[in-house]
């Protein structure tokens, strides 16, 4: 019998710790598929964030480290500058990249570091128990915005791709989603491009992935993907914000 679907080589055979309906597992897998397809497993160094995805090294079968909260782009800069032959990517959630690590993100991007950042935006904090994220949308209820995010009290949702795409050091910024099979395929294409860009010596590449967190959205997995489709992606429109090639 012909085998038509199998685990990527870069992925470990392990039981998931993620909640049912969580998007992290999909994004982890896409990254592994891309690494396999590009044949870069032995060159890759991945950096896990603080947050639910800190345990990414339980899934990824290549060299991985973890950074202090928000410091992924600084750690990536250190690794990549020491040996530009390595393919260095950071995996960050919305708190890590867009709250505590905003400075590291903006400056690594603006220096045009030859690295790849995969930014998983699920509009809420997962590991700490469903608090407001910088990307929580207006009126969204979280454990620290019990009446919903209010622009006057909590400010506005932060649009990372829009923000980063204006920086001259950014080669590539695209927002994708994993809320349907068709979107997963598109997300994989973008992630593959962000790695290929690095191989080709481009500056900073970032892919933002809208990803469901049913547990802290307080929804069933089915409703969570619907919410991304109908509500979240209206605030965070999908698409390519920048693709300026090599400079």
């Amino acid at each position, binding site marked *: 019998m012909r085998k038509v679907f199998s685990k990527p080589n870069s992925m470990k055979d392990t039981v998931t710790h993620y909640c049912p309906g969580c998007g992290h597992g999909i994004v982890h897998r896409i990254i592994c598929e891309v690494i396999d397809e590009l044949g870069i*497993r*032995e*060159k*890759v*160094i991945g950096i*896990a964030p603080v947050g639910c995805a*800190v*345990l990414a*090294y339980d899934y*990824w*079968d*290549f*060299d*991985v*480290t*973890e*950074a*202090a909260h928000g*410091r992924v782009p*600084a*750690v*990536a*800069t*250190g*690794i*990549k*500058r*020491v*040996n530009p*032959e*390595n*393919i260095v990517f950071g995996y960050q959630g919305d708190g890590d990249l867009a709250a505590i690590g905003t*400075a*590291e993100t*903006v*400056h690594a991007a603006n220096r045009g570091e030859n690295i790849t950042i995969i930014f998983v935006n699920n509009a809420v904090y997962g590991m700490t128990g469903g608090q407001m994220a910088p990307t929580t949308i207006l009126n969204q209820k979280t454990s620290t915005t019990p009446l919903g995010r209010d622009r006057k009290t909590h400010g506005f949702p932060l649009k990372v791709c829009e923000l980063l795409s204006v920086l001259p050091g950014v080669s590539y910024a695209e927002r994708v989603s994993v809320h349907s099979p068709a979107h997963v395929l598109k997300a994989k294409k973008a992630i593959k491009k962000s790695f290929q860009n690095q191989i080709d010596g481009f500056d900073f590449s970032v892919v933002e992935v809208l990803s469901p967190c049913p547990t802290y959205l307080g929804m069933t997995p089915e409703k969570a993907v619907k919410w991304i489709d109908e509500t979240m992606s209206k605030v965070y429109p999908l698409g390519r914000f920048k693709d300026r090639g090599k400079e």
Partner: protein
Amino acid sequence: MAKKILMCGNEVLAEAAIIAGCRFYAGYPITPQNELPAYMSKRMPEVGGIFIQAESEISAINMVFGASLRGARAMTSSSSPGISLKQEGISYLAGCELPALIVNIMRGGPGLGNIAPSQSDYFQATRGGGHGDYRQIVLAPASLQEIADLTMLSFDLADKYRTPVMILGDGILGQMMEPVELASRLETQDSRQKKDWILDGCKGRKPRIIRSLLLGKGELEELNNRLQRRYKEIKDKEVRCEILYGDDSDVMLVAYGTTSRICSNVVKDLRARGKKVGLVRPVSLWPFPEKQLKELAERVKSFLVVEMSCGQMIEDVKLSIECKRPVHFYGRSGGEVPAEDEIIREVEKIA
């Protein structure tokens, strides 16, 4: 004899680091250590190394974290307020067992303080500084030659024990100029050990993970126990200190760095007048020369600790001698430097 050159302390430190094989520097400007990154920005490209002016001290220490785990000899430098910002990163370096050199050219605090020399970060440096059960090796040079020698040593110690090492200087040592011999030290590069734990891509080997998050039952205690065993070995093997007139002194001064230079003049003056005064100068502040002080307490009548702080190292002196002798203190803070005659007056009060 090798040629002596005249440089300021911050520059000596930078050049010594390069001689020791340091090829990665990241830092953020802060007075009084700015000559160090400026020198690195010029010198690193000449030797094929990396210089990055980071967006913050936090980012700089994390760049060092990345460079270190990739196998480079890496360092950062700053001064007191900036070192406070680096504490998170230093704790992660300790937790991930990564070598690195952190230089603190101390200035007055607390808060923004001032830019004058100080020794008020002793507690922060010797107790770990950041969160968690860890220590770092802390070396305190008192001359520019010693800055050069200890900088080279610090990279070897960091690699050997896989731990962050701090050079604790002050604004005077960073800014002053003295002739220094650097050329004959080139051999330290050869002492570098092969690092079989770095992340460099898993070609021909199993993938490696570098992390400090240990959630499994007993895993974190195992790491802490391993670190403690290493710290014990460091305490056994890496104590460095200089003692003047340890055999016949009634009063023993205890001082490190800049203050020890002033105290050695005090000892000279008082000895010339027939007073039995000596000096203990800890070179390693952690590990602290506990045994040496304990032995001295058998013969010496009292101790006088002199610091450019309100009294920090004095606690280690008291702990070392188990309070068997009176331990007096004289300190100036806020960027003020104790003068010889002030210290002599203190000695005369005691003896």
